């Protein structure tokens, strides 16, 4: 195997985390993990000479937070029935998700060297039958969110108030698909309080700016009228991501609380106009290409990996 600048060596974060339990990491740790993820994403896509670095970097902080602090999951037992589910509806950000799953020890980090090659378990887009830790096969935009709704419904049927949560990461260009809105409708219709959509709102798609290609705004108002709890945050700020997801956590656990606790929680929820028995929508303002100065907000890095030269520069910035 070629060991050049694109080679991804084993990384051990030296973290002893029980992902099946409630936990809290400090922001510095999360930042360091996210930096590792970014490096892996860039190396892997340059190595594969294909893939989607821009949208992977815009989702990196959100994914890092979800997997390292929020979601209950189990790298030793990827199919654990009580795990929270995650659906990468914008499946082209697979490199970031793969990097995170590897850092969580679902498989060796060095597997990323085979990304997108014949025989690799790391397909161009997530494949739930090939890659341990992937909950849903995605890549064709507009489908994943509906599958997420089905997961939330199924888990509620099986576990009632103890149902695990489902989080879906949606692209803002992806939100142009009609099926996305059908899924929104369905989630609200069934009062899926264990269902949360995070919009990776980098306002870029392939052909240009989302508001210019086919406007989707105002998303907050639209989702509110669809019957979602809504909150807008900076998708690169771990405190804000943590806070928004804690509101979702309260909504989804609401029925498990004592009456007293419910009262306390309702007070917090009311401040944000959140209500129990509703799905959650988190509008995360993000920057496509986040973390590498010359990639930020550059539409051309949507589906184009860095040259080896630019990779060197980028890795320099991520030291």
């Amino acid at each position, binding site marked *: 195997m070629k060991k050049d600048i694109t080679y991804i060596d084993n990384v051990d974060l030296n973290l002893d985390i029980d992902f099946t339990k409630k936990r809290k990491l400090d922001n510095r740790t999360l930042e360091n993990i996210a930096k590792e993820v970014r490096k892996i994403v860039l190396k892997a896509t340059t190595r*594969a*000479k*294909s*893939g989607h670095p821009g949208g992977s970097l815009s989702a990196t902080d959100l994914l890092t937070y979800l997997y390292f602090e929020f979601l209950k999951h189990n790298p030793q037992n990827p199919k654990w029935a009580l795990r929270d589910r995650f659906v990468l509806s914008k*499946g082209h950000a697979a490199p970031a998700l793969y990097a995170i799953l590897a850092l969580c020890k679902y498989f060796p980090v060095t597997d990323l060297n085979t990304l*997108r*090659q*014949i*025989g*690799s378990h*790391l*397909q*161009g*887009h997530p*494949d739930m039958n090939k890659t341990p830790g992937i909950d849903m*096969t*995605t*890549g*064709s*935009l*507009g489908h994943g969110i509906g599958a997420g709704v089905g997961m939330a419904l199924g888990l509620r049927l099986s576990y009632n108030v103890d149902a695990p949560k489902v989080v879906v990461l949606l692209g803002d*260009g*992806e939100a*142009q*698909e*009609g099926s996305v809105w059908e899924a929104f409708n369905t989630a609200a219709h069934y009062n899926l309080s264990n269902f949360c959509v995070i919009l990776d709102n980098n306002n870029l*798609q*392939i*052909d240009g700016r989302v508001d210019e*290609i*086919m406007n989707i705004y105002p998303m907050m108002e639209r989702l509110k009228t669809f019957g979602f709890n809504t909150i807008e945050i900076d998708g690169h700020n771990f405190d804000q991501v943590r806070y928004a997801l804690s509101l979702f956590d309260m909504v989804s656990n609401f029925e498990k609380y004592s009456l007293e606790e419910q009262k306390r929680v309702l007070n917090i929820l009311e401040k944000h106009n959140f209500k129990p028995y509703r799905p959650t929508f988190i509008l995360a303002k993000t920057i496509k290409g986040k973390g590498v100065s010359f990639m930020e907000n550059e539409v051309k890095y949507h589906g184009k990996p860095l040259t080896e030269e630019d990779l060197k520069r980028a890795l320099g910035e991520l030291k």
Partner: protein
Amino acid sequence: MLKTSLREAYAKALIELGEKDKDIVVLDADLSSSTQTAKFKARFPERFFNIGIAETTMVNVAAGLATTGKKPFVSTFAMFGTGRAWEALRQSVCYPNLPVKLVCTHGGITVGEDGATHQACEDLAITRALPNMTVIVPCDDIETEEVIKKIYKLKTPVYVRLTREKFPRVFGKDGLLKELFNIDYDYSFEIGKAYKLKEGKDINLITCGLTTSQALLAAKELEEEGISASVIHLPTIKPINKESLLKALDPSKIILTIEEHSIIGGLGDAVLHALSDQDFKIYKHGIKDEFTISGKAWELVKYFKLDKDGIKEKVKKILKK
């Protein structure tokens, strides 16, 4: 071997048509740089509509435009244009028989690294199944340009499958036919027509798209090994002109269809259907009934045995040589 881009040929033809016919309109779904319709947009911005990532709506909008006398060309990746939008294609385009031209790029496995989610290997099957639909798979840039200019005149729906990869040029002075066999082929596209590119006694290879060039390369080497294969290029999967196909076939009663598509419902089945009352032994070669995988385009072509070596292997197996 000169490799040329079918997408570029499409854009070139589109602009030429746009120049002389103000009713030409073009629609895309956030892939205009990949499909190259962005070039049409640059020239005729008022006649270009980017519908965003909403393929179903794009096809319905095209149908509506067609009812007002416009001549819509609709483009995205083959997977999404035929798959996501299939029912819109059926209900709003084919059933009312409207002149919508769906020209998709990124058909087949040569999409490469994006993997199974993006590799349309069923597009010919699902478009071929639609009444009123014409289905065409050009093999090189010269043919693509001709196809676009011909179908533009049709008052009915057409699906044209193009690719991401550059393909070896087959026709023209610097094409494979000239290079391999010193044939000056007098080519002009006709819907339904079968093109006998090379004669052969032992077996008839019927191809379209990618596999036409690969079969020519295979036939050349087979010749040197004492196997005489004819190559018949059949760019129109539907409707097939049966007489033209029968005329093109060489006397051997063995046919091998080769396609960058599932063996279910594509070129192979179209040929089987056309010749079902004839006395031929027909073998189909293509993607088996399975989902494909990520990889570099030409490595996948080899992996799925659609390159010259894979084709030779298949031919020898059939002829037991």
